[in-house]
């Protein structure tokens, strides 16, 4: 039988692609993929997994050579692929992704400016865009007595509250999320927040509604999960040197939650 030799370059590539496959498969089957990418990319990732399986089978077919091939360990390609493998191995043993919210919160600013524009400041172009947005996203919660935030309606509801507050003023609300201490508005308010993911975790931003705790004597620790009940009210607050009208939740009741939930909500 003719002697066969292993092509080490192909072997390294085979290991690399299989690590990618195992990582992707694990993330998809455990559901942790939703901490990383928006659900709309899940199908594309599954297709990618199948194509990578095909690539892997091809590499197996060319793994053995009739002639011994010289292999220089210092070749840049090999070094690069090794770095890639190290990165991917670190992914496989990475801790629970749901726990990264504290890091992301400190890096992403609460998108205050967009939300605190008063109606007088909106020019005709933006009002046109807003009316188009409202016609596309009919929010069914406007007429109900108590507005309840869910994972599914969190993003659209938050936007609608800022843009059409007249429908929500003085209504009761129940919302669940993690505490974020808003740096703007002289630190008067904190927010019950989620991380809004457009495409992936890298572009996630903190989103939520400011809460006015009034005389309630409780320290709301950042990143701690709460379910709060309250009433929608408006406040005049200073942001970047100008007074703007913002919607807030006047706190009536709260319940501390154990946490560990998915902090992300997704823009459809």
């Amino acid at each position, binding site marked *: 039988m003719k002697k066969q030799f292993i092509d080490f370059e192909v072997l390294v590539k085979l290991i690399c692609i299989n690590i990618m496959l195992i990582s992707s498969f694990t993330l998809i089957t455990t559901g942790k993929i939703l901490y990383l990418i928006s659900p709309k990319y899940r199908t594309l*990732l599954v297709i990618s997994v199948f194509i990578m399986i095909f690539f892997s089978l091809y590499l197996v077919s060319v793994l053995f050579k009739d002639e011994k091939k010289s292999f220089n360990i210092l070749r840049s390609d090999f070094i690069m692929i090794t770095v890639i493998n190290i*990165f991917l191995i670190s992914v496989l043993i*990475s801790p629970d992704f749901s726990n990264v919210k504290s890091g992301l919160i400190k890096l992403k*600013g609460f998108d205050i400016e967009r939300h605190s524009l008063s109606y007088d400041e909106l020019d005709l172009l933006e009002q046109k865009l807003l009316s188009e947005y409202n016609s596309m996203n009919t929010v069914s919660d406007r007429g109900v007595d108590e507005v309840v935030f869910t994972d599914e309606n969190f993003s659209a509801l938050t936007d609608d509250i800022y843009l059409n507050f007249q429908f929500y003023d003085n209504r009761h609300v129940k919302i669940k999320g993690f505490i974020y201490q808003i740096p703007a508005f002289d630190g008067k308010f904190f927010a019950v927040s989620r991380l809004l993911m457009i495409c992936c975790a890298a572009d996630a*931003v903190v989103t939520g509604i400011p809460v006015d705790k009034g005389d309630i004597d409780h320290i709301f620790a950042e990143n701690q999960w709460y379910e709060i009940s309250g009433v929608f009210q408006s406040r005049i607050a200073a942001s970047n040197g100008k007074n703007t009208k913002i919607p807030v939740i006047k706190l009536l009741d709260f319940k501390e939650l154990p946490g560990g939930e998915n902090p992300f909500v997704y823009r459809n």
Partner: protein
Amino acid sequence: MIETIITIALSIFLEGIFFLILGVIASSIIEVFVSEEAIQKILPKNQFAGIFTASFLGLIFPVCECAIVPVVHKLLKKGVPLHICLTLLFSTPIVNVLVITSTYFAFNDHLYILFMRMAGGIIISFLIGVISYLTIKPEKSIFRGDYENVSCSCGCASHNRKSFGSVVKHSVDEFFDTGKFFITGIIITGIIQGLVPGEYMASAGRHFPISNIFMTIYPFILSICSNTDAFIARAFFLRFNISAVVTFLVFGAMFDIKTFLMLKKIFTVKFILRLLLLVFTLNILYSAVIEAAAGRFF
């Protein structure tokens, strides 16, 4: 902190892997089955019509910036004018269906970014073609003396066998060739996003032209394939002004270290540097126009 960096890097990787794979497969199919003669037949004889057509040719032949270099080399050898080849070189990596699709996915809630990217790719490549037609004489001094063999990224000199097997081989090799730059790019992006607080980045990222110049240097170094760079640009969207993000998407697809090294096999370094300066200048001018318009409408 490491957790955050890995989360950011991995999220961009998982988001973009499909488009990376799609890009290498499409590029491989074209490399194996589409001859340079076919491309030559499509190009009109009239110089300006040829430049205009070359600006849009990527819509039919969706290849990335590294795969187009060997194609351009072969077209030059077959006598296609330099200015048309240069237009093709800089338009095809941007104005193609796969890049349009990946950019749409990354910026589906801000589609004007997609339109600006495509418009920039068409306008700048057209201008490069016109300027090079009017000012550059294709003398021997701009070509390397030994540019006989410029191979495609898989390292094979030619694809004599038009077969599915050749497509698979080319796809796998190009997957790793372009994939390593993509993964390096997302790791660096993850480190930047993980270490630099948002307010610092925002304070620098919203000042023209500093932010725009940074967003030409950054993609030049990262050398990421144009099929996947939209996802990295997305990660900076809230911290940089619109013109800087568009600069990243347009300049990054046109010129990077990888492109520079591949062009070195065809042209002299002096000529490539002149080309780089031209591409850089046109991109900054285009971003200045966007900056002026954005100040009015956004």
